[in-house]
């Protein structure tokens, strides 16, 4: 697959000296769905805003479809659609007018057939003459997507499309994204949710404090992220793990009151059954059993530590 977006050593510092991006290099393949994961303030939105021309880069270069975003901005931006994180819409405008406006702004001739297709795709056709203030939050978000799609972009940026959206709507948003991918649109989305990346992305990039920590195929990354912990709490603390239980995956909590077992949810055998039967064979009495999945935050910490070492 060829690259549709190429980012080289992109840096962005704001006037107050804050370094939002510290040299990001990234290639986005045509037709893929790339999810950018990262905590708040990691630089996800800055990265997207810079590619789309809202923020000017401090250093580095970006090209979209082979067009440099600074010297050949018209050609580059014509290929891009952007769905921002905040719901920014003119409250008194009609849905169809605001979508038409977006199409015209991107230099595309008025074409009501395209507008109808986009609005139907997003289940907004029966709301086309409604004022935006009359719509629900989920519909407004879809209007933003319709505006971004109105000029047939080849690359679509979705900045946290499902933040604060209920489960059902999130699923329908994923379906929309899958449909766009089928039409050949390259999609880059930012998200807090691992499940979201898991559900729709082909590749996943992790951004933390202005740096791209990694970009990997989803399957590879999910394996790394799939670590889970089982905490076996005991009624009486022990000073050492009994010999029969010892393994690399098992450790004792600091106060000796719990055994902590790490396992991989993706593997066929997790070893939980064997562990629990051995625990009872050793004569240890269970008080409670808790499982924990490593959170995104934990993964970032691990990634940052790996990076430092």
């Amino acid at each position, binding site marked *: 697959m060829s690259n549709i977006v190429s980012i080289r050593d992109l840096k962005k510092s*704001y006037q107050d000296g804050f370094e939002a991006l510290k040299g990001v290099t990234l290639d986005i393949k045509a037709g893929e769905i790339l999810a950018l994961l990262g905590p708040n303030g990691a630089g996800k939105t800055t990265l997207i*805003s810079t590619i*789309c*021309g*809202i*923020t*000017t880069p401090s250093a580095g270069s970006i090209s979209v479809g082979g067009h440099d975003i600074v010297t050949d*901005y*018209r*050609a*580059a*931006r*014509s290929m*891009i659609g*952007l769905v*921002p994180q*905040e719901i*920014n*819409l*003119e*409250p*008194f405008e009609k849905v169809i*007018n605001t979508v*038409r*406006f*977006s*199409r*015209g*702004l*991107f*230099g*595309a*001739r008025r074409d009501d057939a395209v507008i109808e297709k986009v609005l139907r795709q997003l289940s907004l056709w029966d709301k086309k003459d409604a004022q935006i203030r009359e719509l629900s939050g989920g519909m407004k978000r879809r209007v933003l997507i319709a*505006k971004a799609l109105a000029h047939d972009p080849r690359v679509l940026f979705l900045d946290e499309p499902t933040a604060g959206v209920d489960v059902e709507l999130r699923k329908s948003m994923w379906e929309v994204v899958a449909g766009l991918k089928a039409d050949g649109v390259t999609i880059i989305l930012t998200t807090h949710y691992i499940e979201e990346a898991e559900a729709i992305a082909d590749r996943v990039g992790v951004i933390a404090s202005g740096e791209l920590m990694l970009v990997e195929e989803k399957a590879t990354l999910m394996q790394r992220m799939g670590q889970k912990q089982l905490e076996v709490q005991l009624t009486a603390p022990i000073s050492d793990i009994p010999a029969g239980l010892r393994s690399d995956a098992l450790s004792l909590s600091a106060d000796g009151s719990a055994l902590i077992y790490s396992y991989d949810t993706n593997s066929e055998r997790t070893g939980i059954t064997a562990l629990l039967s051995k625990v009872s064979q050793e004569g240890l009495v269970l008080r409670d059993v808790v499982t924990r999945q490593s959170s995104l935050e934990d993964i970032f910490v691990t990634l940052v530590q790996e990076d430092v070492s």
Partner: protein
Amino acid sequence: MNLTAIRSIYIFEMARFFRTISQSFLAPVLSTSLYFVVFGAAIGSRIDEVEGVSYGAFIVPGLIMLTVITQAISNASFGIYFPKFIGTFFELLAAPISFIEIVIGYVGAAATKSLIIGVIILLTSFFFVDITIAHPFAMVVFLVLTTISFSLMGFILGIWAGNFEQLQIVPLLVVTPLVFLGGSFYSISMLPPIWQTISMFNPVVYLISGFRWAFFDTADVPIVTSLIAILLFTGGCLTVIWWIFRTGWRIRK
């Protein structure tokens, strides 16, 4: 040049004007009618003539200028400030258009709106007074140049403003006094000599004088001076806009 984009901005802005038709259309007509009632009928009946023109007719060019200038500024400044305020401005930045196209779209729409209002006021005034226009072509040129130049100024104001208060403060504290003291309702020659000299520093004097010349063939200052004044003002606004374009001031982070 992305003409489709300019057209889209223009149509979108004009649609706002027609959507709020009562506000954008009735308000200036009503206020102008009130001016005619107060100044034209109530007070004007006690003033014979100013420079050979009945007082009611004399104030028509000033009234049109007063409304056109304030409308041009408020329409243009609001037009560009509103997207900044509600956050839709990002779309203009992400679109394949240059700043010049944004200016043409927004300033063009604001100038058109104020021009329409200017024409409406002129038509309204026919109901109150008898007017003949001595130089119709010059009148149109003055009106168009005024709407464009003050829309440019409004656009700059809208880019500069960080909140609604700032958006109001310049029209309120600078423009309105200048227009009122610029001879909307009187001839500069009616003032004591010292105030005549001070008035010459008010750029609006030249506009109103030139516009009045187009109506009645009499003026406070020579028509060429008026023309130069408005061209200088337009040039000044264009320079500031060019500078904003070069530096991205208050636009791009």
